[in-house]
C-alpha cells in the first residue's frame, strides 16, 4: 500500500473557532492505482492533495506514505520525498517566471543533483515527448495557458515520480487539450505510476479506476 490516511482532519483557526476543511478522512491507495477525487468547489480537494503531496500538514490524524509517518519527518526528508517520489501538477501551472521552459523543467533534476550531461538528455527527451522543443527558450509569460500546463506536466514527470498528484490539471485547458493529458495519465498508469487527480469533470474522473467523492470535507 502506497498511501494510508487515518482520521485525517484539517481546520483553520478563524476568529472564535475552527473552520474545518477536512474531517475524518480515512483512505487507502495502492501502488499503481489511478484515483479521482470529485466534489464541489470548496469541498477540500486541493487541501487533500496538498497533504498527500507533503506540501501541507494535516491538523490531526496520521498519514503514512510508503509506510513512513509523514508528520514525523524533518524538513530535509520532506524535500527528499517531494523530489524523489512525487510529481505535482497545478491548475494554475505555477511555473517560475524568471526561468525559461527548459530551465523550469530542469529544476527538479537540479534539486535531485542529477549530473549535467544526464540532465540534458532527460530534458531533451521530455521536450521531444511533449513536442515543445521549439519553445524551450521561451519564458512562461510568452506561452498560452495550454502550453504552460504542458510544461507543468513535463516538469512533474521529468523525475519519473512513483506518485503523480494533479489538481484540476485540465481546468484551464480546451477539451481537446484535456483529452491529451488524460490519455497521457492513462499511459503512465499502465506503466505503473500511482495517480491521484482532483477534478470537477465527470468525464475526466471516469478515466480513473476509482472515484472518491468529497463533500464539505467528508468522504461520501
Amino acid at each position, binding site marked *: 500500500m502506497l498511501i494510508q490516511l487515518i482520521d485525517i482532519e484539517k481546520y483553520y483557526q478563524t476568529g472564535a473557532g475552527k473552520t474545518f476543511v477536512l474531517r475524518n478522512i480515512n483512505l487507502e491507495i495502492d501502488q499503481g492505482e489511478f484515483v479521482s477525487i470529485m466534489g464541489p468547489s470548496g469541498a477540500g480537494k486541493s487541501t487533500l492533495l*496538498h497533504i498527500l*503531496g507533503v*506540501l*501541507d*500538514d494535516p491538523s490531526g490524524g496520521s498519514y503514512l506514505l510508503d509506510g513512513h509517518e509523514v508528520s514525523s519527518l524533518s*524538513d*530535509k526528508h*520532506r*524535500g*527528499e520525498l*517531494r*523530489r*524523489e517520489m512525487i510529481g*505535482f501538477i*497545478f491548475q494554475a501551472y*505555477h*511555473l*517560475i*517566471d*524568471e*526561468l525559461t521552459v527548459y*530551465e523550469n523543467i*530542469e*529544476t*527538479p533534476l*537540479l*534539486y*535531485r*543533483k542529477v549530473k549535467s550531461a544526464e540532465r540534458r538528455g532527460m530534458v531533451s527527451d521530455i521536450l521531444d515527448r511533449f513536442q515543445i522543443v521549439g519553445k524551450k527558450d521561451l519564458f512562461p509569460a510568452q506561452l498560452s495557458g495550454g502550453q504552460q500546463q504542458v510544461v507543468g506536466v513535463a*516538469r512533474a514527470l521529468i523525475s519519473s515520480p512513483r506518485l503523480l498528484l494533479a489538481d484540476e490539471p485540465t481546468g484551464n485547458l480546451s477539451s481537446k487539450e484535456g483529452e491529451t493529458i488524460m490519455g497521457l495519465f492513462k499511459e503512465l498508469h499502465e506503466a505503473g505510476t500511482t495517480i491521484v487527480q482532483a477534478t470537477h469533470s465527470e468525464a475526466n474522473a471516469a478515466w480513473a479506476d476509482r472515484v472518491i467523492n468529497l463533500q464539505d470535507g467528508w468522504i461520501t
Partner: protein
Amino acid sequence: MLKHYLISTLRRLGRAKGFTAINIIGMSVGLTGSVLALLLVRYELSFDKYHERLDRIHLVVNRSVSASGKVDHQPWLPLPLGPELLATSTEIVRSARLTLGEVIVHGGSGSFEEDILFGEPYLFEMLSFAVIAGDPVAALAQPDGLVMTRQSAMKHFGTVDLIGQPVSLTTEAGRREFRVLGVVENPPAQSTLQFQMVLPLQAWLTYTTRALNWNASNTHILVETAGPVGKFDLTDTFLAILLKNRSDRAPVTDQGEIPTGRRYWNLSLLPFVEAHLSPQYASGLLQPVDPQNLMILAGFAAILLIIAIFNFMLLALGRLQSRFKEVGVRRVVGANGADLTAMFMGEVLLTALFALGISFLILELTLPSFNKLLGRDLALTTATDLGFWASLLLLVGILVLAAGLYPARKLASLQPVQALHGIDPSNPEKRSIQLGVILQISLTIIILVAALVINKQMKFIQEQPLGFNESQVVLYKIATEMDELPLWSQRLKEVLSRDSGVQSVAKVSYSVNRGWNRLGWRDNAGKPWRALVKDVDEDYLKTMEIALLSGRDLAAQDGEEAMLVNEAFVEAFGLDEPIGYVLDGFAGDADRDPTIIGVFSDFHFFSLRSEVAPMILWKNPAEYYQYLLARIAADDVSGTLQRLGDSWKRAAPGIPLNYNFLDEDIQALYIQEQKLQAVTRGAAILALTLSAMGLLGMATIEISRRTKEIGIRKVLGASVPEIMGLLSRRMVVSSLLANIIAWPVAWIVMQKWLGSFAYRIELGPGILLGAASLALLVSLLTLGTLAMRAATANPVDSLRYE
C-alpha cells in the same frame, strides 16, 4: 545548480532594476566607507612597527598635576634628566635626547632652510633606520658630525656618496662646518620621527646653556629598557631622581603623601609604539593622531554600512511576497529550507560582490584625493597583507549575513502551500519593517547630529576671538647667525617700517605658537611660580593688536626688568595689584627683581583644545630676535609684499627672504579638525542619500501595495491632501520615533567628543531638533513625490491595475 541560481538571480535583479540599483549603490557606498576606514585605521595602527627593539623603546613623559588637580601631559623634560636616568637606573640601558630645530644649509646650489633633529648617538642604535653609508651612531658622537637622509643628500648634493663631505650650516649658534658621517634612508611614512638631517645635541644652542638646568623642560627623551616594561617598576627611580634634583616637583611630600597646594610631576614611560596614538603628548616632533577621531571615522563607516544593510533588508522584506510563488514551486519540486536559504543568501552575496567591485572602482578614483585630504598614502595595491583581506572578507561576510539572513529565514520558513497561495502568514514583517525603518532613520539622525556638532564646533573655534588680530600679519624669518641677530633684526625692522603699506613691525623670538619657554621658579618666600615666557620687543602688543588692560606697554628704554603678564597669570597667582609687583627670584635667579608693568588680555596661541596658561612677555636682553611680525594695510597686500621683498633683498642680500601669513600658521593648528570636518560632512551627505534611497524603495512598495485602496478612497471622495496624509502618516511617525533612539546616543557620543576641547559649543536642543527636522524633511520629500503621484493618479487606472 550554481549556474541555475546565478541565471535566475541575474534575471530577477535585472527585472527590478530600481531596487537592485538601490541595493548595489547602498552596499557599495557602505563598503567604500568601511574599506577606507579599514585602510586608515590599519595605517595609523601600524606606525613605528619596523623598529626591531620596539618593545623596549619608550618615551619618557610627564603627567604634571597642578595644585587644583588639573593634569597637564608633557613630552618636554629637563635636559639633565636623560643622563641622570642612565646613571640611576640599571633597567634603562640607553637613552637619547632629541628635539626639533632649524638650520640653513649652504649647499652647492644656494642656501636652504631645513627642519632638523638634534639628537644623541643612541638614537640610531635604539631605532632601526636603515643605514646607507657611514655610521650615524658615531656621527652624533662627534661635535661636528652630521647625519643626512637619502632625500636631503640628493637634494643638496645629488648623491648619497657623501661620507666625510663638509657641509656649512647656520644654526642659532652661528655658521660653521659639519661633516657628513652617516647617510640613512628616509624615515618611512609610518614613522613618528620625521627628519631630513640629524645634528649632535651639542650643536643645539639651548643645550650649551641648559644642559644642566632642571628648571627648563625642552627636550624629548627616548629610553631603551633592559627588557619589556611590566617586569619592573621605575616609579622609585623617577621619585629618587626628582627628590634629588627637583624636590619641589616630587609626587610625594616628605611625609610620603601626595602633595597639596603645589604642582607635582608624574614621570612615566610611554611605550614608543603608543606615541602615535597619544594626542595628549603632541609636540612639533611628535604628531600623533587622536584615536577618538579614528573611532568617529570608523563609526561613520559602520553607520553607512548599517544603513545599507537596513536598506537591503527592509526592501527584501517589503518585497518578500513577490518571491512567494517561486519559493512555493521550488518547494514542490523538492527544495528544502536549506536550499532556499542558500539560494537567497547567494543572491545577497552576488549583490554584495557587485557592490564590492564598484566600491573598489570608487576607491581607485577617490583614494588620491582622500590621501591628499588626510596627508596619508593609503593604497589598495600595497595592502597586500593578509590581515587586510581577511578583515575585508569578514566585513563582506557580516554584510551578507546581516542583510540577508532574516529575509532568507522568512522565505525558507514559509509553508509550501502558503507560499504558493501568496499568503503572508501572520504578517509580522509589517512590524519589523517599521522597526527597521525607525532604526535606519535614527542612524541617519545620529550621523546628522555628529556632522552638525563637528561643523559648529569647528566654526566656533575658527571664529573664536583669539585675543589678537591674525589677519594681515606677515611673519618674516631672519635666517642668520645668532651673533648677527641683534644687528639684522633692528636693521630689517627699520627697512620694513619705512614702507608706507606697513602699519607696525615687532621683533619676536619666534612665531606665535613657538618659542615659548616654560619656566618655573620659587620666589624668595618660597612660593612656586610658572609661566610661558616669550621674548618680544615694545611693538608686539600693537602689531598683534592685543589689548593692554592695565599699566603700560613695553617701551624702547625698558630692559629685562620690565614684564608684561596676561590675565591668566594674574588670576593663577592671585595678584590683587599686579602693576608694580616684583617677581623676585625670577627663573631661579635670586638677584633679579623684574617688575610687572602691565597686564594684557589673554590670547590663544595653541589650539583651543587647551586653556590659556599664565604668560609673560619681556624683552630679550641680548636682542636675539629671529622673526619680524609686520602688520600691513589691507589694501594692495600683494603690492606691499612685493615692495617689502625688494627692500629686504637690497638691504640684506645674504639673508634668504622667507615669510608667511600668520593666519595660515593659525589655521595649521586646526588641520586635524578640518580634515575631520570634511570627512564628517561627506559621511553625513552619503548617509542622508542612502537612507533617502531606502525610504524611496520602501515607499514604492507601500504605495504599490495600496494602489487599490487609494483608488477606492478616491472614488469614495477622498481629496489629494487626505490621501497624501494617509500615505505619509507612518513615515512621519517613524521619523519622530527615531529621535527617541538617536538623541541619547548622539548626545552622549558628541558630548564626549566636545569634552576634549577647552573651548566648546553648548550641545543644545537646537542641533538635535535641526538634525531631526532635516531627517524628517528628507523622508517627507522622498515620500511626498511618490505619494503625490499616487494620490493624483486617475482612480480608474489604479483600480484596473488590480
